[in-house]
């Protein structure tokens, strides 16, 4: 009787210590080479280090691969480095933007910022006077108003695309796509020409909200469509088999099942418009005091506040603009985290 010795599982493809040491050495050599190259030639600056380092790293790794495994492997190693450069170039601006906003905005953040408005202050005043209460309340007003208008339309559009699937499905999907490409300034001009000039004849938060609605509908419609497509068809069939009309099936089964996904869609829509500037500049008038009435009188908002402070130009005003950007960015990141959390929970279930 021979007993079969169970073979010990191994991972022949995993990196051995020798490989790790070799990779580390190649990296170090590339670092030294780039340092030496920059020191010896008239090139200077972070960019030069960055570029020469990647160049030498690509050169050394592919050279080594060519020596040990031939040209196909060398090409693979070179592409490896190039792909890394691409990823680094995508991440660098994000890192730079986040870092700059936090670094330059933090000095402008104080408690008074959230309790005062700019009614008695100008952007060039010292930072202790004035604040962005009017901007925050204004932005919230604009968001709520545009939510009231865009959520029903967006979700109805998504329902048409997923539940009714009429003969117009293809053209409507195309139009929603086209609508998401409408420049924000065109949406602003449209409200200006269609509502503000002929009917209301004055700046108000409602005008801004109308333009934001146009920009928000496609985001909500497309994300909701994706979510509703994920709802299993069995649920709809079960609803119909129990004698439910389509209306009852959709409202009592499909929509509740997609609730968290639809919330994600709405949050993404809000994140899309929270920092929209161009239509706000055309339509809201940008008041400096808290204006609770969204239907008459100019209303402030975060983008308008940032724009006004940035254009005032003095160091205090620029700090104000960065602080406003920090608040706006924090709002958008918060919304995104909520959306992530909700959609993650849906998948986990």
């Amino acid at each position: 009787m021979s007993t079969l010795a169970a073979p010990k599982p191994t991972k022949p493809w995993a990196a051995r210590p020798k490989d790790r040491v070799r990779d580390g050495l190649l990296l170090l050599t590339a670092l030294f080479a780039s340092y030496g190259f920059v020191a010896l030639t008239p090139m200077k600056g972070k960019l030069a280090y960055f570029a020469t380092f990647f160049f030498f790293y690509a050169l050394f790794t592919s050279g080594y691969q060519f020596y040990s495994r031939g040209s196909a492997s060398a090409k693979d190693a070179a592409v490896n480095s190039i792909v890394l450069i691409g990823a680094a170039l995508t991440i660098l601006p994000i890192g730079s933007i986040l870092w700059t906003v936090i670094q330059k905005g933090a000095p402008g953040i104080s408690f008074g910022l959230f309790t005062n408005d700019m009614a008695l202050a100008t952007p060039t005043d010292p930072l202790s006077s004035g604040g962005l209460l009017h901007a925050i309340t204004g932005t919230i007003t604009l968001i709520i108003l545009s939510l009231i208008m865009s959520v029903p339309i967006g979700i109805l559009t998504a329902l048409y695309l997923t539940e009714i699937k009429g003969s117009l499905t293809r053209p409507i999907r195309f139009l929603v796509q086209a609508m998401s490409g409408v420049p924000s300034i065109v949406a602003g001009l449209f409200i200006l020409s269609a509502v503000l000039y002929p009917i209301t004849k004055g700046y108000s938060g409602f005008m801004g909200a109308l333009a934001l609605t146009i920009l928000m509908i496609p985001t909500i419609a497309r994300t909701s469509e994706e979510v509703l497509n994920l709802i299993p068809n069995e649920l709809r069939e079960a609803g119909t088999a129990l004698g439910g009309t389509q209306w009852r099936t959709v409202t009592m089964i499909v929509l509740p099942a997609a609730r968290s996904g639809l919330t994600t869609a709405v949050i993404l829509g809000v994140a899309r418009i929270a920092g929209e500037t161009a239509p706000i500049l055309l339509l809201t008038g940008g008041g400096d005091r808290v204006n609770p009435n969204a239907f008459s009188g100019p209303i402030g908002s975060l983008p308008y506040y940032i724009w006004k402070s940035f254009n005032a130009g003095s160091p205090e005003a620029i700090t104000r603009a960065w602080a406003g950007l920090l608040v706006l960015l924090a709002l958008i990141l918060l919304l995104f985290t909520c959306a992530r959390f909700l959609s993650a929970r849906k998948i986990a279930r």
Partner: protein
Amino acid sequence: MSAITPEKVVPAPREISTKPRRSDKVFRAIVTGGGLSSLAILGLIAIFLGYRSFEVLRQEGFSFITQADWSITTDDAGNVIESHFGLSAMLVGTILSAFIAVVIALPVSVLSALFLNFYAPNWLKKFLISLIDVMAAFPSILFGIWGFLVLMPSVEYWAKLINHYLGFIPAFSVNPYIFSRSPFVAGVVLAIMIIPIITSVSREIFAQAPLDRIQAAYALGATRWAMIKAVVIPHGRSGVIGGAMLGLGRAMGETIAVFTVLNIVFQVNWHMLLGAGGNVASLIILKFGEASPYEIKALMAAGLVLFVLTLLVNAIADLIVKSTGKSGR
């Protein structure tokens, strides 16, 4: 015993019909109405902008898109004495900066999409995808101010380098020697704005590359790059081009980010490093503040041109992306 045969009770057959109930009819009507809203909104935009700008377009005629000067003279009472509205400099500037943006953004986004799909470890992939999604939602004013205060000095330096070594090519020549606020700077800022868009479109297309072919390529001994070249790129080529067109449409319609970093000059300029450019959307913001009612109509006409332009670009992008499903099979 007489058998009492009970009277057979046959219930009347229930009427079965596939006709929708009244509630369903109402429901379908409401949902269809909601679905048609996008058509209504797009149609209304075209109608109202066309209606407002009709007067200016009729007066300027075809020269509205072929002339470059933008001037209006009014007397003290506010009556228009003389006006010339031409959009060609702005159109050239819009196309130039959007084109620069796509040329820079396309390779970077394709490489980072490849990195996300085939190179990054799983934890890094998830983190980077959410980071890039957040970046796609950054407000344009953030890109504008960051671009003006942080990025522009470096980009001017790069522009000088390009001019120094490649200045003999007409497109890179600079005369007079002004580098700040050029279409190139605007193009770089726009490129950073559209990289997340093109990256996420390309990433989704690459992720759909058939797994059996990927594994077949590996089984035949392909390296990672050989596999990408043989399977992924042929599969995703047209989808990536569609993504680039989407980015182009976004770059053409961008307002605030371009306005902060571009020096608007009413003169057609093809030299991308020279500090004089144009942009239709920025023109509207620039002139809106002090515009007379007649000039507003001209701005509406500019908005109409921009609307049609972006609609065209998006339609082409949509067609290209739609046709990807069939390619590479």
